[in-house]
């Protein structure tokens, strides 16, 4: 999938810019929030006046919370289309539209076109278009789908990752290239699908391709010129993982020398996976960046006894040097393709009579983790979807309690493994409101069976694997939009959806949450109650990320890229045969009716009040 990211004139100007553009980020991570349902108008000591949305997660805490409140629970039903724009691309559109200085920036899946749309003009016409000339071979050699999860804006620069492993800095006004930096090699199976994160004078980018025998890494580029400042691998010797004296993991099983070698059979780490194709968060006060690593690969599980460090876990690293500070492994020795790349939402929660600096992670393995982000201690871990693959998380060791009866073994039938490989939630990011204290989770409700043996063929080489079929979990709905109370450790409310909810979420200070469905409904719901306020049918299924912003006219807008695809939508975007349930690694079996519900095609929609 996993799996999945830049020339600024002066380094200190960037950090200055970040402070100016998104003070909300700092406030969410530093201001103790009440986490009550009571409106707390004073939560943001320095309100974000720009109304921009400069990075996919909006703020460094990855809350996807906007302080805008014009569109509210009363008037949301009046939302109408204000502008549309066709990208001309048919693959899955997973990117968040980015808004800065009255311009909207969107990036398409391969060939990774970037459009700048002028929001100050009627109909938001194209201001400039950038074609990175992404190598066509990226589609064939690349491990995964050809998606892109968004660009980032900082200091009048757009930072773009291309599928063929380049990070590119563009002048935000003109679209002119400032620099191009090549980070990986398609020929080794590497690609980049994730969105870059700009932290101070660095651009952080990770690779995709765990299934191809790629060795995962996070790389920091100098934002001024694209030079590599540091690279931290996810497997191998401590020196290359950037593990040194400052590394203090909370759990004993993560302590020791060169575990990135010793928790694998000889040399298996060299092609061990642990790609970094998901999301990165940043706590400016602790000066730590947080990100997850993908599943181990390409070995079958019997061939890689051990915990397979540092795959399927989350790293905290010094934002300047990349040194590892702590690590927590959600799925040691992953059996089920439970990549650990999902976003970490940073908040300060009232727990145990005090306030704790935490990260919330809705992990692929089906557990909602609340983790002390200062030291990597799991405070709580509760299933937010049906889970059979494990029997809970042991808080003493931090490890999942294995369900031995479901362990996969080739040729044996194993049924009712929940969650299925895409997890309780895949890459599609959650949102968090300090006002409601709720985390909004776009979830899958999918289980899977392993049966028989299926022959397949890659590079002239026949191989075999379990015949995987996914299907709806308990209740028969394949998706669910869940509002989760991380303090009470339970669902506040939820909305059952027919298809997996494969879109991101945005939530506002007026308690409106936005998300989309794979059959093409874009919805606004009351963030306190889950009441549906409004919905609009768009041209293609939604696997993108909604954003909301203040236009040049001072009015609030909400935008979404439609365009079905990705793993879940491969049956439509890839034209797969619904009769072959095992296609797309078994996902097609769960989605035979999607081609009747939607068709492919990338289209931007901007909604506003009349």
């Amino acid at each position: 999938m996993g799996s999945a990211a830049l020339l600024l004139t002066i380094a200190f100007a960037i950090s200055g810019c970040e402070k100016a553009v998104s003070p909300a980020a700092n406030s969410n991570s530093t201001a103790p929030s009440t986490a009550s349902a009571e409106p707390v108008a004073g939560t943001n000591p320095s309100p974000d006046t720009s109304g921009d949305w400069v990075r996919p997660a909006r703020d460094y805490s990855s809350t996807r919370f906007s302080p805008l409140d014009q569109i509210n629970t009363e008037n949301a039903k009046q939302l109408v289309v204000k502008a549309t724009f066709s990208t001309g691309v048919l693959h899955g559109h997973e990117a968040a539209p980015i808004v800065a200085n009255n311009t909207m920036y969107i990036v398409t899946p391969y060939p990774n076109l970037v459009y700048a749309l002028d929001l100050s003009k009627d109909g938001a016409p194209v201001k400039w278009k950038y074609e990175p000339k992404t190598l066509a071979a990226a589609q064939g050699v690349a491990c995964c789908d050809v998606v892109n999860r968004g660009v980032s804006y900082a200091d009048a620069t757009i930072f773009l990752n291309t599928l063929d492993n380049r990070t590119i800095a563009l002048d935000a006004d003109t679209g002119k290239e400032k620099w191009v930096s090549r980070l990986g090699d398609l020929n080794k199976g590497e690609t980049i699908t994730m969105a870059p994160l700009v932290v101070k004078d660095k651009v952080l980018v990770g690779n995709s391709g765990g299934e191809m025998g790629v060795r995962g890494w996070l790389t920091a580029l100098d934002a001024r010129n694209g030079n590599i400042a540091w690279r931290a691998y996810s497997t191998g010797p401590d020196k290359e993982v950037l593990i040194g004296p400052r590394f203090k993991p909370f759990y004993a099983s993560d302590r020791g020398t060169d575990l990135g070698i010793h928790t694998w059979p000889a040399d298996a780490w060299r092609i061990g996976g642990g790609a970094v194709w998901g999301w990165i968060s940043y706590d400016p006060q602790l000066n730590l960046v947080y990100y997850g690593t993908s599943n181990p690969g390409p070995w079958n599980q019997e061939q890689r006894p051990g915990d397979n460090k540092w795959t399927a876990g989350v790293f905290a690293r010094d934002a300047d040097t990349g040194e590892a500070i702590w690590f927590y492994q959600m799925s040691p020795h992953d059996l089920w393709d439970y990549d650990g790349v999902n976003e970490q939402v940073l908040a300060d929660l009232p727990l145990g009579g005090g306030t704790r600096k935490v990260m919330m992670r809705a992990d692929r393995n089906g557990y909602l983790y609340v983790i002390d982000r200062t030291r990597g201690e799991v405070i709580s871990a509760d299933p937010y979807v049906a889970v059979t693959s494990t029997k809970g998380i042991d808080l003493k060791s931090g490890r999942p309690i294995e369900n031995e009866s479901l362990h996969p073994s080739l040729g044996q039938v194993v049924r009712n493994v929940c969650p299925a490989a895409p997890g309780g939630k895949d890459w599609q990011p959650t949102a968090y409101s300090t006002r409601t204290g709720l985390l909004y989770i776009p979830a899958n409700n999918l289980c899977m069976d392993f049966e028989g043996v299926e022959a397949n063929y890659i590079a002239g080489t026949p191989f075999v694997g379990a015949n995987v079929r996914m299907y709806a979990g308990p209740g028969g709905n394949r998706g669910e939009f869940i509002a989760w109370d991380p303090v009470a450790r339970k669902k506040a409310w939820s909305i059952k959806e027919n298809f997996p909810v494969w879109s991101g979420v945005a939530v506002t200070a007026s308690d409106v949450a936005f998300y989309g469905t794979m059959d093409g409904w874009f919805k606004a719901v009351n963030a306190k109650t889950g009441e549906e306020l409004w919905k609009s049918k768009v041209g293609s299924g939604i696997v993108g990320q909604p954003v909301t912003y203040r236009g040049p006219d001072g009015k609030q807008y909400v935008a979404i890229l439609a365009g079905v695809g990705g793993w879940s939508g491969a049956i439509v975007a890839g034209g797969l045969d619904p009769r072959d349930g095992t296609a797309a690694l078994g996902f097609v079996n769960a989605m035979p009716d999607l081609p009747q519900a939607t068709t492919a095609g990338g289209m931007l929609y901007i909604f506003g009040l009349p």
Partner: protein
Amino acid sequence: MRRMLFLFIASLVAVALRDLRGAEPLRVCADPNNLPFTNAKGEGFENRIAALLARDLGSRVEYTWFAQRRGFLRNTLTAQKCDVVMGLPVDSDAAWTTKPYYRSTYVFVTRRSRNLHVRSFDDPQLRSLRVGVELVGDDGANTPPAHALSRRGIVGNVVGFSVYGDYRTNSPPSAIIAAVARGDVDIAAAWGPMAGYFAARQPVALDVVPVQPQVDGRFLPQTFSIAMATRRRDNARHQQLERFIDRRRHDIDAILAEYHVPRVDGARGADTSAPLSRPRPERER
């Protein structure tokens, strides 16, 4: 009226020109860098068989090149970029396969000078030798030898070679054979057609023998029948391919033998009891 006449004459000319060029081209999708199967220079055995087929049809081969990886069929045959794929295991779900035209096997590859004579996954030597194995790693799926070794607990001494390899090199999956020749591994378990071809091209003599058991446990086959494939419902093309396989069986066998493809279907040159690669003068370096 004059315009109509012009169009009529133009269409006659077009028909005549098409006849001059011969039949429609045989549209084949293939990997540009995957010897011994195919490459962009037409040096693979599938290239040769496709050329033979085209000749029979009075046509020529028109290739669409695409790395044969995840999404290969979806982006090529299914996307109508071509009409034929020259190699796919029979009964693959993703396309309509013909009757098989050869059956091959996973093989053990060793340096002849080592005199290891390993023939079975149950040979105790495999617990101590440095064993190379091909990995695919498609979420739990893997090559049959990878599964056969791991279910016997042969793990710590196993070196994985991703079949994806480094696509800048020629035929990325072949790295495992070069590793045997160099002595980086003592023995490799690899897919026969690739192993047979590259074993015969190393500077030292290598032995290539089919792995045993050929079906490991109840379910794990080490042998596969390989067919050509068309899109579903392309009846005419499917019939044409099957007729070609019947008619040209001996010529196809001869091409496969030329490429040292290990056969387990009783075909000529399919002697599985003796080492399959030809003896070569021992030359160390």
